[in-house]
C-alpha cells in the first residue's frame, strides 16, 4: 500500500485518522476497550448463563478493534478493512438490537448492541453511520492534502 504509493499513501493514511476522523477513531477505540472488557468479564465469569449474548459481545469487540485499526492505519487496505468491519457493525447493531427487543429471553444479559446500544446512549447505533460517512467522504479524497477542509 503506502510502499507502492508513497505520496498518495501519506495523504490517504491521514485522511481517516486526522481531523474529524481522529475523533471517530478515538470513539472506536473506546468501544473496542469497552466491548473487549465486557466480553472478557462475561466469558470468563459466567459464560454458561447466556452463551449467545456473550459470544455476540466478543464478536462486537473484535469488530470494534478491526474498525479502529483500519481507520487508524488508513490507506487503501485500512479503509477497505474498516469498511467491512463497519458494515458488519451496522448489521450487528440492527439485528441484535431488534432481536433483543423482540425476544428478550434470548438476551438475558446486556451486550453492547442490546436495544440498539441503549446502555451506551445509542452511540453504537450512530457510530457505524458516521464511520461509513467518513469512509465515503474520504474515498475520493485520498489525494487531497490533509485538513484542507478541517483546519
Amino acid at each position: 500500500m503506502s510502499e507502492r504509493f508513497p505520496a498518495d499513501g501519506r495523504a490517504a493514511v491521514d485522511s481517516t485518522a486526522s481531523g474529524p476522523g481522529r475523533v471517530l477513531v478515538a470513539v472506536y477505540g473506546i468501544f473496542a476497550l469497552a466491548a473487549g472488557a465486557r466480553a472478557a468479564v462475561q466469558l470468563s465469569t459466567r459464560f454458561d448463563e447466556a452463551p449467545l449474548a456473550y459470544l455476540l459481545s466478543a464478536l462486537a469487540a473484535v469488530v470494534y478493534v478491526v474498525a479502529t485499526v483500519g481507520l487508524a492505519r488508513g490507506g487503501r487496505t485500512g479503509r477497505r478493512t474498516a469498511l467491512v468491519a463497519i458494515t458488519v457493525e451496522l448489521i450487528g447493531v440492527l439485528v441484535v438490537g431488534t432481536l433483543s427487543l423482540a425476544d428478550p429471553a434470548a438476551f438475558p444479559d446486556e451486550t453492547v448492541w442490546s436495544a440498539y446500544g441503549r446502555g451506551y446512549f445509542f452511540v453504537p447505533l450512530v457510530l457505524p453511520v458516521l464511520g461509513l460517512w467518513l469512509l465515503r467522504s474520504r474515498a475520493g479524497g485520498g489525494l487531497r492534502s490533509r485538513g484542507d477542509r478541517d483546519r
Partner: protein
Amino acid sequence: MPGALLVTPLLVGAITVVALLLAALGAATTVVGRRIGLVHVAGAGLLELLLLLQAGIAAAAMAGGTRPADTPTFVSYLIGVLLVPVAGVLWARTERTRWAGTVIAVAALVVAVMAWRLQQLWEATGV
C-alpha cells in the same frame, strides 16, 4: 461501615466536575479552531490523579473485605478508566488540527460516564 466512605460521593463529584470542565474546554478549543495546549494536558493529568486516588481507595476497601456485587465488572471499570485520559492525551497530542480538542472532550466525557457507572456498581455492594 468503612465501605460506605470508600469510593466516596465527594471524589466521584470531583472527578465528574473536572471531567466536565475538561470536556467543555476541549469542545471550546475545537469551536474556536485552536490546537490543544498545556492546559488540556494539565487537566487530563489532574483527572488521572483523581482516578488513581479512587483506584487506590477502592483497592484498599476491597482488600478490607468490602466487595461490590459484580466485582469483575467493577474492577474492569476501575482499571479501564485509568487508561482513558492517558490514551486521550496521546491520541490528541499528535493531531495538529482543531479536532484534537474534541478528542480530549470525548475522553473526558467517557471518564465522567465511567465514574458514574463505578459509583452505581459500588453502591450495589454484595456484603
